[in-house]
């Protein structure tokens, strides 16, 4: 009797659950178009129009360019705006913004407090009809460009879930002159190519500048009387320091994630191996000891692993080892030669240069070597460097010279992880070997 009762009860619940089951639909594809966003000119009081009119217009242009360059956002033309910033200053009419297909809306106020500029900005979700980010920044009037980058970073962060990379700088080697007598200077600029300046005079050959991940400091290689030297340069103070003379060949010094060590490749007795120098104690430690050529070391963001390239297997391939030189293993598996591995600041990928069948590729692979993706292909390109959020890579590309050696040029390019958003980074002249800073503190 009880058995029968439970059986009926069981059937009853099965029946009920069947009736009340909610239909589930899986959405596994979507629209890959950039997110439309409306960036308004920030509101200001008419009494301060003389000063704030230009700042308001310029700030909109900078934010708009930053977000569009990321490839993830599309800034809506301001001519399409229905609501003016005067009325919006009080409250946005969301239906007006939805009508022009804006999914995000940036509004703000500008005001002067003596010499200081006060910037209040708000980010709105026009579909949810709510404010999702707000910030107040007070700075000097001349600093409006940097404030614009900082706001763009906040918007990017709020809408993508990861930090922005607009308030950053790029250091690179500026080149000029014929190929056999090339003058190479260190140069620095904002990521949008503004505020460009040279850091060295060009008397000495400079190579491989790399940013310190925690300080506004650069390490680079320079030849002094034909001897390679590793330098440290404080960008803010301009103070230069020699880390040491390294006889023989020295390649690609790079900081550890805490900024206290430099990892590089030194050629001693005809053999290149990986060495680490502690910047505090100045002690140099050897990490690889192999008859093959080991070069281009790069730390993982947690500092526990190091990736480098080596030809110990017969061809140039990417290897990973622990931060004490142990557990060295090859991770690149494809055909062709792999070089310049750089660990992503996000920790999930390694960027590299690949040479295959006479063409050069910039690609990424997971840290175990799987999921190799070639993002861009060209006649010659190399030296990838990650943006602070690990989403964009800059590198340099050379154009082919003609038979008389003319027509050669080199320029900096950027590409995002999707492989679709490839852009040329504007520089005053030829440029090579770029390095991207972390967010300016």
């Amino acid at each position: 009797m009880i058995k029968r009762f439970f059986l009926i009860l069981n059937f009853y619940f099965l029946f009920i659950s069947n009736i009340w089951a909610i239909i589930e639909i899986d959405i596994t594809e979507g629209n890959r178009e950039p997110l439309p966003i409306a960036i308004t000119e920030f509101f200001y009081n008419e009494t301060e129009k003389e000063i704030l009119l230009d700042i308001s217009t310029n700030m909109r242009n900078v934010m708009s360019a930053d977000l569009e360059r990321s490839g993830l956002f599309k800034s809506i033309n301001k001519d399409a705006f229905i609501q003016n910033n005067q009325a919006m200053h009080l409250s946005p009419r969301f239906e007006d913004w939805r009508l022009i297909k804006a999914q995000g809306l940036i509004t703000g106020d500008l005001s002067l407090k003596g010499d200081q500029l006060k910037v209040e900005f708000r980010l709105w979700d026009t579909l949810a009809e709510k404010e999702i980010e707000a910030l107040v920044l007070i700075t000097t009037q001349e600093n409006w460009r940097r404030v614009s980058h900082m706001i763009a970073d906040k918007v990017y962060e709020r809408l993508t879930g990861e930090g922005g990379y607009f308030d950053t700088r790029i250091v690179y080697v500026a080149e000029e002159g014929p190929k056999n007598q090339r003058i190479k200077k260190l140069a620095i600029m904002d990521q949008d190519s503004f505020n460009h300046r040279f850091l060295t005079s060009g008397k000495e050959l400079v190579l491989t500048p790399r940013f310190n991940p925690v300080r506004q400091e650069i390490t680079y290689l320079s030849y002094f009387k034909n001897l390679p030297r590793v330098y440290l340069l404080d960008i803010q103070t301009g103070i230069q320091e020699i880390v040491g003379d390294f006889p023989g060949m020295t390649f690609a010094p790079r900081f550890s994630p805490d900024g206290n060590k430099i990892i590089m490749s030194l050629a001693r007795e005809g053999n290149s191996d990986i060495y680490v120098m502690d910047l505090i104690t100045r002690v140099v430690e050897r990490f690889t000891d192999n008859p093959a050529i080991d070069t281009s070391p790069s730390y993982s963001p947690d500092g526990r692993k190091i990736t480098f390239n080596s030809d110990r297997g017969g061809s140039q391939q990417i290897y990973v080892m622990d931060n004490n030189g142990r557990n060295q293993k090859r991770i690149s598996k494809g055909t062709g030669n792999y070089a310049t591995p750089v660990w992503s600041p996000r920790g999930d990928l390694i960027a590299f240069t690949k040479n295959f069948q006479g063409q050069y590729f910039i690609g990424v692979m997971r840290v175990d070597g799987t999921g190799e993706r070639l993002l861009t292909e060209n006649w010659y390109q190399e030296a990838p460097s990650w943006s602070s959020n690990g989403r964009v890579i800059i590198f340099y590309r050379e154009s082919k010279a003609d038979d008389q050696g003319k027509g050669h040029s080199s320029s900096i390019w950027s590409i995002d992880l999707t492989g679709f958003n490839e852009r040329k980074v504007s520089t005053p002249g030829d440029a090579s070997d770029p390095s991207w800073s972390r967010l300016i503190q």
Partner: protein
Amino acid sequence: MRYSLIGSLILHVFIFLLTIVSLPLFNTPELDIPPIIQVELIEIAEKTNVPEISKKQEKEEKPKKVEKKEETKINQPIVKPKDEKSNEKVKDPVEEEKIVKKKIETKMIEKMPVRKPEIKKEDKFDPLKLAELIDKQKDTKIEKEETKDLEYESLDKTPSISKKLTLSEEDAIRAQFMKCWSIPLGMPYDETHIVKIRIYLNKDGSLSQPPEMLQHERMNKPGEEYFRTLAESAIRAVRRCDPLKKVPDINRYDDWKILQLNFDPREILRG
């Protein structure tokens, strides 16, 4: 001699004729003409299996224009004689001319022999019943789909009481959300990044209440910024798609008035 010559000649002629008739060489074959199939030409509307409702609609549709003109322009002052505006319209000589012209037009059309017997008073076009007419049209279409569904269901051996959308209905909903969903590209791959949202729909496809995020706690957790971004993009997609342009069978509204949408970008982000 003469008789024998005549006899021989007759015999030879007979043999010659017999040869022509019997030998296949001289026998021209008859053309193999296929039998004639008789086809009765009939009017499509009379014999096809169009459901009863749509037949009525067809009848209704044709006199629509005629009746519409009568009712909207001519009958209005009669139906609502107290309406000052409509009275004014009648007084306007230009308008009167138009109405006279339209009357002539309607008479002309009414005189057409085929249409005339089909016009019934009940079938007069009523703009207020337009929605019902549209609904009926939907019903006829959906009826056909339902019959297909029953076939599928019988194949699947699933109980008829279970909630299920047809593949085309499910695809139609999926396609709409796919268009509305701007995927946050470039995110790191994460096996657990699936956003589940419950939506409550009205019969017309609009949201009856705000979308319900089923993983609300995770969305607001620190360190889950990527998930929050993904969840927000999914919610935006739901709002952008409000109202849905295509909805499943209205007769089964109870089945789809609540839907769970699983936004799953893993394949895209896996790279």
